[in-house]
């Protein structure tokens, strides 16, 4: 569904000719398009320390949005707000709005379990359960009380979606821990897909993988974005430029809170960034 994108102060790159422009407010290169996630003036605090300052960003549905920036700029913190992972850290709080299909996930009444089902996550290091390959993917559907037939069907579907089926179909009952690092990461993705999410958050999903396994994950992302909205945090500039449709550049302000500096189509961010700080970062002048 389409909701109005938020006003913000960041430089927005590009004209995004292929996206119909919308009457309303600024940002977004994604303005007028189908917005899945819309953050408005988000601030985030670890106790008294402010880690994010006034971040407004509209994530387009069925596209890949990359968050880039130096270590400590708040990319991962920002990503984890989308499915309220920060709830697990005592003393943290987020203000502003994070609209998922127009509904603010920061509302106290939000069903967080349902939210995390809808917004899945893939972490830096593959974290399969010490269970069989089958049980890893079946875990979510099983918890949701699906029938055995439904579970078997979804396990096969998700393993096929992640390109693992042909590699593991004859050893589904073997431990997932025996898979290679790249296979484990794809298994974790299959596990996330099994509960039918709308959005997949990826936090440096290929940073521990070799180039071939990385390429497979990236190809998978292109395949999956037809059905899912993907937000990825990456330190790998080439990866961001290769895989994403939109890129957001974040940076720490003098108070050490992360801010959004520039957001726009990836082609523009990597070819013609508007803000000198973006240019300096992507060209390696600081980091």
């Amino acid at each position, binding site marked *: 569904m389409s909701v109005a994108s938020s006003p913000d102060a960041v430089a927005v790159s590009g004209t995004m000719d292929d996206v119909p422009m919308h009457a309303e407010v600024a940002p977004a290169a994604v303005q007028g398009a189908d917005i899945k996630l819309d953050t408005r003036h988000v601030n985030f605090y670890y106790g008294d320390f402010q880690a994010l300052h006034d971040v407004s960003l509209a994530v387009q549905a069925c596209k890949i949005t990359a968050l880039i920036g130096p270590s400590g700029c708040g990319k991962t913190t920002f990503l984890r707000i989308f499915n309220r992972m920060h709830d697990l850290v005592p003393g943290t709080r987020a203000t502003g709005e994070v609209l998922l299909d127009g509904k603010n996930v920061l509302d106290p009444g939000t069903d967080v379990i349902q939210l995390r089902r809808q917004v899945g996550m893939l972490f830096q290091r593959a974290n399969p359960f010490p269970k069989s390959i089958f049980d890893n993917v079946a875990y979510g559907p099983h918890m949701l009380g699906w029938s055995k037939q439904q579970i078997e069907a979804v396990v096969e579907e998700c393993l096929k979606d992640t390109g693992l089926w042909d590699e593991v179909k004859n050893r589904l009952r073997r431990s997932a821990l025996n898979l290679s690092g790249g296979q484990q990461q794809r298994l974790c993705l299959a596990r996330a897909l099994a509960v039918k999410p709308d959005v997949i958050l990826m936090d440096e999903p290929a940073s521990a993988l070799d180039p071939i396994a990385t390429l497979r994950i990236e190809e998978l992302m292109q395949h999956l974005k037809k059905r899912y909205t993907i937000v990825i945090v990456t330190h790998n*500039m080439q990866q961001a430029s290769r895989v994403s449709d939109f890129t957001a550049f974040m940076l720490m302000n003098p108070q050490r809170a992360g801010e959004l500096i520039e957001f726009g189509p990836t082609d523009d961010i*990597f*070819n*013609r960034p508007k803000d000198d700080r973006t*240019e*300096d970062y*992507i*060209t*390696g*002048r600081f980091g």
Partner: protein
Amino acid sequence: MAAIRTQFDQELAELKSGVLRMGSMVEQAIADSMRALVERDNDLAHKVITGDQDVNELHRQLRERAFMIMATQQPVARDLRLIVSFQHMVLELERMGDHAVGIARAALRLNDLPQLKPYVDLPRMAELTESQVHDILGAVIEADQDRARAIAERDDEVDILYHRVWDELVGYMVEDPKNVQRAAVLLFLAKDLERIADRVTNIAEDVVFLHTGRIVELS
């Protein structure tokens, strides 16, 4: 924040300095080739022809260096535009060098024959073209897109002179078949000058691209 790309910046500076060195060599070759015609100096014409090997070698080295920087530094944004522009510029300069050789060869063919006509418009064309080459190298150094656009506009003057020379030489051919050989060689020579000016416009487009990231057509 601290700069952390000293080696990369040094490699880019060396590449830029190589492009400018090549530009100077080509600028000199164009001037010498025309002087070889006007002063009927065959030695100078031979010098231009043999000197083109140095231009070609420098062209090869710069392309190789640009390729290595791309492979090892994986540049983006302005850095990438800089290297891509330089690659294209050196190609244009190499071709300009070839045109200078064309002029020198024409001079060799004409210098042993009686002069068809006083050279008036051709030296003027050459003067305009040389100044365009000189100025565009300045615009490259400064990465000055406004200057580059202004230089590209001067191509019209060269085109006007080229058409005037063309009409005049065709007139000589019609007038007397004995003129045909010399007039034809001069026509090719004029064409070489006209093409050099066109290539200056191409480099001006590179300067604009370098500055804006947009590929434009200035001709």
